[in-house]
């Protein structure tokens, strides 16, 4: 991914996430991301149309309650089911993805977002993502987060 594109995506991502979650983030180098021993989860969605590919948000499991609580305006302790946490992370991705595609292809681009999926990321896959040129590192309220954008080369 070119540096210009990375900067545009980082700017879009942070702007949208801050507006949606009221959490503050900043870009960090992938080699500064520390893989905590807890499980990490990803929300990933495909998109098709003006551009085709997939986008994923990958976070340590312990960050999910804070994200969900901030989106919903609740206390993290009130979020009692894993479904609520997964749904909130999928929704954060959904909102980010629409804006990322418009950053890549313009506001007039016609595209379709497919249903986001939520899953635990296998440890070996997580290590691969940290080496992947299509990954970008961030902190969100000082917690690590990865964004992974795969575009089909056309």
């Amino acid at each position, binding site marked *: 991914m070119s540096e210009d594109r990375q900067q545009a995506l980082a700017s879009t991502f942070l702007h*949208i996430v801050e*507006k*949606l979650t009221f959490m503050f983030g900043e870009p960090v180098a992938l080699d500064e991301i520390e893989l905590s021993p807890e499980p990490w989860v990803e929300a990933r969605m495909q998109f098709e*149309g*003006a551009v085709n590919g997939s986008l994923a948000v990958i976070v340590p499991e312990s960050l999910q309650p804070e994200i*969900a609580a901030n*989106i*919903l*305006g609740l206390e993290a302790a009130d979020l009692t089911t894993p*479904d*609520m946490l997964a*749904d*909130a992370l*999928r*929704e954060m991705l*959904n*909102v*980010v*993805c*629409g*804006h990322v595609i*418009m950053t890549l292809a313009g*506001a*007039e*681009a*016609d*595209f*379709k*977002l*497919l*249903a986001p999926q939520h899953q635990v990321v296998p440890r070996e896959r997580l290590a691969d993502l940290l080496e992947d040129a299509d990954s970008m590192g961030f902190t969100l309220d000082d917690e690590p987060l990865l964004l992974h954008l795969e575009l089909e080369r056309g």
Partner: protein
Amino acid sequence: MAFNILLVDDSLTVRSVIAKALRLAGVDIGQIYEACHGAEALTVLEREWIDLVFADISMPVMDGEEFVDRLAASGAIEHLPVVIVSSAGSGPRIQRLKDKGVRAYVQKPFTPEQIREVVDKVMGVTNHE
């Protein structure tokens, strides 16, 4: 006048956030109904009196575009204001939906003030008490 409002989105998070935004914005709400997709929304509309619909585009079973197509085919969209709330709002798609009778589009993420503005606009609310 209190509005009965139908929220159509497969995400519980989104339905909760819109409901909260409506309350924070001071919209006079009668009853809030929820549906996970367009087909479920059509069932609610057969059963309940609804004044205003907020619907997503990307949903399983029946997406927002097909839902709007059904309302347009039956003529219901002429009397039932439908607002699309989505992050997948490309220019051409929004125009297609508006051509079919959708009254307004709200891009996510949104604020309670934006929701208030759109309710006022589509429901013709001119003063607040």
